[in-house]
């Protein structure tokens, strides 16, 4: 059980993140949001630019289980959590 104790979560991709990842979802193990982002960008390097902190924020937002958008990437994760990654540009 090499991952015992590390929560298993599902990452959902929307909009640009889905297009760049070529995936709708990605199951992974991570204890915090930061660990999840590290793993996501390791597996999908094309997503790296979207997570970069620019003066007006990254190009993606992260929501835990479709709740409020997260600023604290040290937020801890639990088994079964769904990390929703979507584009920060909402307008139409």
């Amino acid at each position, binding site marked *: 059980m090499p991952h015992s104790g590390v929560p298993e979560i599902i990452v*959902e991709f*929307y*909009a*640009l993140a*889905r*297009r760049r990842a070529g995936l709708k979802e990605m199951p992974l193990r991570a204890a915090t949001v930061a660990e999840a982002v590290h793993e996501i960008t390791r597996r999908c390097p094309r997503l790296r*630019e*979207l997570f*970069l902190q*620019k*003066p*007006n*924020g990254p*190009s993606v*937002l992260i*929501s835990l*289980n*479709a*709740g*409020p*958008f*997260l*600023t604290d990437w040290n937020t801890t994760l639990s088994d079964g959590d769904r990390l*929703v990654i*979507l*584009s*920060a*540009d*909402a*307008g*139409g």
Partner: protein
Amino acid sequence: MHGIHGRYLRVDVTQTQATFHPIPESVARRFLGGVGLATWLLYREAPVQIDPLDAQAPLIFAFSPLVGTPLTTSAKFAVVAKSPLTNRLNDALASSHFALAGKRSGADAIVITGQAARPSVLMIEDGKITLEPAEDLWGLEIPDAQARLRQRLGPAFHFAVIGPAGEHLVRFATISHDRRHAGRGGLGAVLGSKRLKAVAVHGTQRCTLADPAGVVAAARSLSERSFGPATAKYRELGTIANLLTLNRLNALPTRNFQQGQLADALHIAGEALHEQQTVTRESCAACTIGCEHIVASSQGPVRIEYETLFALGSLCGLADPDIVLRAAQRCDALGLDTISTGATIAFAMECVERGLLTSPDLRFGRGDALLAAIEQIASRSNLGDWLAEGTKRLAERLGDEALSFAPQVKGLEIPGYDPRAMQTMALGFAVNSRGADHNRSSAYEADFSPHVDRRFGRPESARWAIETEDKATIMDSLILCKFLRGVFEDFYRESASLLRGVTGWDVTAEELRLTARRIVTAKKLYNIREGWTPAEDTLPERFFTQPLPDGLAPGASLTRDRLEAMKSAYYQERGWDPKGFVPADLLQTLQLTDMVAQ
């Protein structure tokens, strides 16, 4: 003067006369151009309490200092009038060559009043006007009318055109140009009421730049940044990518705002359209972003945006991409605002469901009924004559129960963000001068940020709603496309720098912040003059009494008290009185005294 002509052209169609009138440089600096300048002109030119479809009601095309410069996305124009849908100020923006040619006609704005004796095209060439007979164009759909005009006038002229909906005075008819639309609030009906099928412009008068080298350098920098990640979503997917995201957040208006998600949303999602259909990309004139995504449907190419997708799709309970694309194409050809069209039909569908309206086929999920209703609206035939009046007037016919769930504010149909799930946006819908509007408020930006909890609006949300509204006001007056907003590190400082380079004015970031506040309040003053009451700044009863049911994300509810608390904070932050009126001392602070006195 640099960047502007310092005058506007007043056209009286009845008399076939046009005269130039000066715009003092102090006014140009205080109101910039686009929406700001046109607000000043509307206050000045429109008779008080005029019926928007009266011959003397002005229709204003406004350009801006940045139009005609090499700055990316600056080829835009504003169209402003008193709305036949809301009886309040209405501003809409469109892009492309009409803006460039219009400004070269020698005016910073064109104010059109009067009524032609017969269907006509208003030709404006270097400030001189003629009326060309247009009986042969009257009745034509927009693509056909554009093709005929192109053939008749040649490539030098650019034109803004109405379709059959504008001719029939549909209260949400558009003015269209090169597949772009001044979409909201029924400006096409205002042009139609003047018996003008089109306005054609051509000119040779260019404005100088105060600092040509500086503007070119700024343009290069802005263009380079516009290729980066801040615009990637618009470039790679377009706004249609919003649909699945909002569905996941339980914020996608569905079945006339009865739900926040659509079961088969994936079928009409932007992501799916890109995977399953051929999608090509186009740009407006002078734009380096290229956000237009043209989908190859069975009926030919269709330009599609999120607002169209939600209004003609989920709002009507439809997830068939062929139907939604066909409906979008018909709206564009007939000259109908897709948001108001979809919202009015969805509202009628719920009225039929509740037994308030008799039209057996008009049911959620019925694509054939949607397509038939669109045709009937544009021609004002059968039930279409009622639908062509918009949701508010239709609801008033049907009674108080219908009014409680008619999706409108001030008569303008609500766009694609459920206000219970996005409560800063709810505030924006309630207080905005043109009614339920996402583009002028842009408060969705706040809800799509960690600054607020989108499901629990608080008085502190007002500050964010003002921040986004002020920024949008400057972009709509400079004019620049809002899809550029993410590329600026310091929006006001950089915008002031662009304006300095073009005009030579020693404008600062602080001055532009004040300018934004001035223009927002000027719009409010126009509405007050036309009869605005505090009761208008609210949402339909449904949003206070029916919580949004749980979906892929938790449901949400909004109370009247919560909205009132946000409104109070908004009014206070704007410097308005507790009821939303504008105190006399604020007029002085914002240098609006002369506008009101004129």
